[in-house]
């Protein structure tokens, strides 16, 4: 029975499988890539299967150990969760391939090959456990279990960030770890308030016992701040750029594309689903304001960076702001609920940012540095990488037909509809800033260097270039999938449906 496509047990695969893979990767020092690759493939397959299940049966709950809430822990699938899962699976597969290419390339380096062998040794188990944590986060329906998955993610992410062994990366990673801990503790304090007030830990049960008490509000505030720290929303973003920029290229991809999404996803669920009845408009506006500041500040900082990876990292800071812009706009009832914009931004950003960091990593591998000033002529030697970078940049800017465009469209529509035009201004300013920082680098790629200054390097393997390109293309053409994605989103997220009586698409 359990092997049938209808079986709800598939739901645990995205968590358990990477866990086992992580253990095996740690246990064996050889063939780790094969383990990871198989895991990533199965993960993708299962994500698709779960979506199929969702479309056929609607929301499914899975009670681990057979214990129903409030006492047990439940997993559940709904539209947003599965889309995030799918995003992670797709990006994860690409990252796995890319990491393989990356380490092969580095290990082939006669001088420093051994160090990279060491890095690869630990990369795979860390990455697999991180994947498990992320999948667990997306699927989990228990507020304390979410804390554990957050920790899983936080520790593996911090370890990954320090993996490159450079002093800068270790410093950044240390800070990242501390901030992550602070965030976790704040989150835990929130749980305490929560549990005190509600007496339950399950999200589904909590939803039904939405009490109007100060305790629950304090809990929301604490949970939010904790997650904001992990999401790196301005002004708490300071740890992100150094941590993301100094990590190894595959790690940067993981951190920027996936890890920040995890904590944001929780925020999103809390604000729009769990605590939606008690959320005040002023709080939504506050979050939106922070998002707006993030967009502008991140964009401006990205523009002035001298290093490619730092620039991409600041771009993440800026893009995260978009996720929060949707908060104050969520109350307007237009044709499509605005929160779906958040999913679109997240999906686009995951794919595009992965592609961008991969491209940046390729440039780094190729040139041995990533100083923007000296990137001249990369186009000629790395055409696919540059193309991927360009397409990813375009998606980040929110040009059609990227998924971010759809999101921007929704946000603009509702901001204009509700006469909150300032958000529209910020959104547009953000994309212009994105244009500037994307093309500032792009133009350097296109410079034809005066002399043949590029040293002869080994050509990059297709594993390094093609995942970037494919992810970038996915990001670019995401809007064409919009009807399908919206259909998935509308499935089964009962809480969301209640919140938006205006109707789901």
């Amino acid at each position, binding site marked *: 029975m359990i092997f049938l496509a209808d079986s709800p047990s598939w739901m645990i695969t995205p968590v358990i499988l990477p866990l086992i893979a992580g253990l095996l990767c740690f246990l064996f020092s050889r063939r780790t890539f094969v383990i990871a690759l198989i895991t990533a493939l199965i993960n993708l397959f299962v994500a698709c299967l779960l979506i199929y299940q969702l479309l056929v049966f609607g929301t499914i709950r899975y009670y681990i150990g057979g214990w129903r809430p409030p006492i047990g822990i439940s997993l559940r699938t709904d539209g947003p969760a599965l889309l995030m899962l799918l995003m992670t699976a797709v990006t994860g597969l690409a990252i796995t391939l890319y990491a393989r290419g990356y380490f092969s390339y580095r290990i082939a380096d006669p001088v420093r090959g051994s160090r990279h062998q060491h890095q690869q040794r630990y990369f795979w188990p860390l990455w697999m456990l991180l994947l498990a944590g992320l999948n667990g986060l997306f699927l989990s329906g228990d507020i304390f279990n979410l804390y554990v998955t957050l920790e899983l993610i936080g520790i593996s992410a911090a370890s990954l960030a320090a993996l490159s062994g450079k002093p800068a990366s270790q410093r950044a990673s240390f800070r990242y770890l501390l901030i992550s801990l602070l965030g976790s503790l704040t989150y835990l304090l929130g749980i305490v308030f929560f549990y005190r007030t509600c007496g339950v830990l399950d999200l589904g049960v909590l939803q039904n016992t939405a009490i109007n008490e100060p305790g629950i509000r304090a809990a929301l505030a604490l949970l939010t701040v904790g997650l904001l720290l992990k999401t790196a929303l301005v002004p708490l973003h300071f740890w992100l750029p150094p941590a993301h920029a100094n990590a190894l290229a595959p790690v940067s991809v993981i951190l920027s594309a996936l890890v920040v999404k995890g904590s944001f996803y929780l925020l999103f669920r809390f604000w729009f689903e769990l605590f939606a009845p008690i959320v005040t408009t002023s709080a939504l506006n506050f979050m939106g304001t922070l998002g707006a500041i993030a967009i502008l500040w991140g964009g401006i900082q990205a523009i002035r960076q001298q290093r490619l990876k730092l620039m991409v990292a600041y771009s993440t800071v800026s893009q995260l702001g978009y996720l929060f812009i949707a908060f104050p706009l969520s109350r307007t009832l237009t044709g499509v609920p605005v929160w779906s914009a958040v999913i679109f931004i997240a999906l686009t950003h995951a794919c595009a940012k992965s592609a961008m960091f991969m491209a940046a990593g390729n440039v780094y591998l190729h040139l041995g540095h990533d100083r923007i000033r000296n990137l001249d002529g990369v186009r000629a030697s790395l055409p696919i990488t540059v193309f991927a970078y360009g397409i990813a940049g375009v998606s980040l800017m929110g040009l059609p037909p990227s998924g971010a465009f759809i999101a921007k469209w929704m946000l*603009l529509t509702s901001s204009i509809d509700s006469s909150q035009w300032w958000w529209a201004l910020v959104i547009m300013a953000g994309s212009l800033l994105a244009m500037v920082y994307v093309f500032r680098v792009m133009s350097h790629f296109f410079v034809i260097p005066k002399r043949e200054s590029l040293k002869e390097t080994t050509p990059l393997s297709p594993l390094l270039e093609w995942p970037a390109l494919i992810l970038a293309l996915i990001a670019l053409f995401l809007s064409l999938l919009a009807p399908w994605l919206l259909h998935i989103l509308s499935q089964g997220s009962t809480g969301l449906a209640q919140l938006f009586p205006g109707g789901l698409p």
Partner: protein
Amino acid sequence: MNSGQLLLLSILLSSFIPGIIIFCLPEENHRLRTLLNLCGSIVKISLILVMNVGIYYGHVFEIRIPLIPGVELLLNGDPLSALFATLSSVLWLLTTIYAVGYLEGSPNRSHFFGYFSLCVTVTIGIALAGNLVTFLLFYEMLTLTTYPLVIHRGTEKSLRAGRNYLIYAFGGGAVFLVAVVWLQTIVGPMDFSAAGFSPSYIDSHGPVLSLIFCLLIIGVGVKAALVPLHGWLPQAMVAPAPVSALLHAVAVVKAGAFGIIRIVLDVFGAQNLLLLGVLPLLAGVATVTILYGSVRALQQDDLKKRLAYSTISQVSYIALGMSMVDQPLAVIGGLVHLVHQGLMKITLFFCAGNLAETLGIHRISEMRGVARRMPLTMAAFSIAALGMIGIPPTVGFISKWYLGLGGLAAGNWWLLLVLVVSSLLNAWYFLPILIKAWFGKQQGEWPAEIAIGRFETRLMLLVPPLVTAVIVLVAGLVANAQISPLAWVRFIVQGYTL
């Protein structure tokens, strides 16, 4: 998918696929690349002609791809899109031939031609766009695909130009997006249609709609280089000549102008615009642009820059025509200028490119007696320049004539003044060039002459301007015939109840 949709799709793919293949081709394989390019463009032209016949006989060509409720991609073949598509595809063929000759032996050609093909795909997409969202999609893509072309030389100067181009273009795009969204929140999702939206919205949202109109015009005005949004255009002259030709005659500037046409005719509609009373604003901007562009053109010694400012000035004729949207004659004038200006300007840029490539001439002051060295090129240049001035029987006269008549019909006497002054200014900055070239005496050596075979320059450089120049003349001479740009534009205008 019916045959009409297949046709639309293959029109787009006929340049997209060659473009992608060209990207993948090795640099040395120029034979296959040229073949691909030419085949693609010829296939495209024939497909578009088929579509034109279909449109003439009332077939419907439509592809609809819904994205989210209220947002859908719509490709639609109507007479207006056929006009722009035909223009683009024909000029693309010529420009391709020209570019093959122009870039012979220069580096990064596969890159260049790849983007070139994409650029045309996108331009055709703009032509076929059936609603504002689709238009926006291709409009932004156009910026992207032309950017690599602008900075193709890879010099510091071209990078700066590219940067400014991007800032302007994406700034415009952003404004456009906001306006589109705003419009949609008021009138709901709408396709391009002859009537525009329902006039009932005017009563409820009059001022807002006016503002939206202005924003939309600003959005497309950047590409159409309306003053004061024109700054990028002269700087973009650092690009290679085929690119300038393409930018100025076909793709970018025309896309902006086409956008104005769409907004005026198909989004708002004549009646609504009259009710809103925003047309004088458009007319004012167009007038200022026409005059300012001409005066600035006068001040340039760099040939391409002069041509660029001339473009700024000339493209606004289209806007001017659109500003009198209730007058069929003016609309005809504006629409037909879309084609006419394209033909003339591309000729001029081809010729300027020939001068630069063959003799190294970039400045007007270096052009003395150049017609003796390159008579055919300069003959083509002269025809186009006279057309720009509006001398019959070139096509330029026809546009001006209809604009003037339309202006009178609308009771705008000042419009005649604008036309007169602009013609004089045009003459003032074009005729001296002709005089220098034909009657001046060569002084010293040409800056950088390269010896080229039998003709005055490479055959591939020579043929396109001659062809376009002949079209400029013939299209003027047979303007009243059954098949001519003017006739098609009349057919378009029949479709609108103005």
